[in-house]
């Protein structure tokens, strides 16, 4: 019994379908994410990755199928309720409170986790415990020196880092990341990769990314989505060798250069 509970995936999606008119954006998708695992989701543009993410986090409702979070059916729960159950995410296009400072953004997240957001009296910005934790979190993503800068004045890459800090400050059990490396230079990508790697084991992560170096370096398992269907799920090596995946997504490059693609985490560090 205990064994079973332990083996239960953090996220389980079964038979999910969603159509926009004639377009089957999600077509009978089954996917699961285990605790502590990084599960990458790849697929051609328009395959339905973002649509899947937004159904999991509750912004869009599926036509049919079920979503289980920690064994709990959340298919019809509101987005905020899922967040309270431990679902965190970062957005493909930055979603932050632009008028707040970096610190305030994280304080907000910590405060909401601690669950007394309806207080009308004390100023959370002056709450030592909240602020201290928020600072730690900012330091974690390397934004210590930018605490007091309003988000609107941050550079693109810094916003991406903050985005992650805000998501992590909520201490989610499951993290959905939609193209976190998009728009990042090689250096930033590498440091983001390092950061995600260091978090491995603490969170379950569903990672959508077109940067194959990062995906192969990080993922424990990879699912390939094409035209709304999961055509394959397996380890990075299996995926790389899979002919259908090569044809639909990777092209020949990655398949022909297994040496480059098979970079181990250590080698990523060596590169930078």
């Amino acid at each position: 019994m205990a064994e079973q509970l332990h083996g239960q995936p953090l996220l389980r999606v079964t038979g999910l379908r969603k159509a926009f008119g004639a377009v089957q954006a999600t077509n009978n998708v089954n996917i699961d994410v285990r605790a502590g695992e990084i599960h990458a989701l790849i697929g051609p543009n328009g395959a339905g990755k973002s649509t899947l993410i937004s159904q999991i986090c509750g912004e869009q409702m599926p036509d049919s199928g079920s979503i289980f979070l920690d064994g709990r059916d959340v298919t019809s729960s509101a987005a905020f309720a899922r967040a309270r159950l431990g679902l965190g995410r970062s957005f493909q296009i930055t979603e932050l409170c632009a008028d707040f400072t970096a610190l305030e953004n994280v304080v907000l997240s910590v405060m909401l986790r601690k669950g007394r957001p309806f207080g009308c009296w004390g100023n959370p910005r002056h709450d030592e415990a909240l602020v201290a934790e928020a600072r730690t979190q900012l330091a974690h993503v390397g934004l210590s020196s930018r605490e007091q800068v309003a988000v609107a004045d941050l550079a693109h890459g810094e916003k991406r880092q903050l985005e992650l800090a805000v998501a992590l400050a909520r201490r989610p059990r499951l993290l959905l990341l939609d193209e976190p490396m998009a728009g990042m230079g090689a250096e930033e990508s590498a440091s983001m990769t390092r950061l995600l790697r260091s978090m491995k084991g603490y969170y379950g992560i569903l990672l959508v990314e077109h940067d194959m170096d990062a995906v192969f370096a990080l993922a424990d398992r990879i699912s390939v989505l094409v035209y709304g269907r999961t055509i394959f799920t397996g380890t990075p090596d299996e995926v790389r060798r899979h002919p259908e995946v090569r044809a639909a997504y990777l092209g020949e490059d990655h398949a022909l250069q297994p040496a480059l693609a098979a970079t181990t985490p250590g080698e990523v560090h060596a590169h930078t």
Partner: protein
Amino acid sequence: MTTPRTLFTRYAAFGAFGLALLLVMPLVASLTGTPYLTNLVTRFVIYGLAAVSLDLVIGYGAMVSFGHAMFFGLGGYAVAIMSFHATSGGPLFGWSGSQQALVAWPLALIACGLLGAAVGYLALRTRGVQFIMITLAFGQMVYFVLVSLQVYGGDDGLMMGKKSLLPGMNLAQPVVFYYLCVALLVGWTWLCMRIVNSSFGMVLQSLRQSERRAVNLGVAPTPYRLTAFVVSAVGTGLAGILWANFAGLVTPDMAAWTKSGELMAIVILGGVGTLLGPIAGAAVFLGLELALSAWTEHWMLVMGPLLVVVVLAGRNGLFGGWLGARHG
């Protein structure tokens, strides 16, 4: 760049200066032999109270209410009606003490709060422009209800011959009434500032800036917005109550869309999202209107372009830029 600290200092300076000005006003009035000055400033203060309340929803919750005058009207009518029954209309439910401020005012505020909750609940299904228009619709409905209250004067409105009774205070005394208004304004503004700086206020503002983000941090939007809306409704209702006592007359156009528009103009003029700015905005707007119309009957020819210039010249109204409003 303005740091939080300099901003804090500016707020303090602005508030202290404004408060000092308000406190000495009756003295100035009697020294200069212009006693009506107190009356004039009482008007600013009452409108300031309504403007602060409106700013709470517009500036911090991004809920642009174009029907807020309904609470102004309701608050005013509630006390005027109760007072009418206590004096000439025959006791209300056999109770003749309904001009007692300590009873009537809280009842009026509760009425405003309830109306705010009902309207807010329905209106918050929409956003943006639709929110503006649905609040306008509810405001107009209240207006038409007031117009059709034939017992209470219908379109002509209802005179409130006797001011509310407050133990230990004679509200008929302009100066006493003035200081009561100032005290309420200061208290209410202080309360609103606490609210916007609290956890609640922080969540409310995060909803304005990025609803998606807030929801994904576990925030259910409606309760926050609705609470802010109700608080704002109560504050605006309080202003209506004071207005009824000040003017001795309530009319349906207290609730008409033009009044809502005027309140909105005051908030924008003073600086959205600064709470203190709109108070000053009330003084400037009403003062300008009076001064110009005393000067020439074609005062709108001046007032209109002035408003345009204010908008074109600065991004945040008259005081918003200085007070660090992040709006515009």
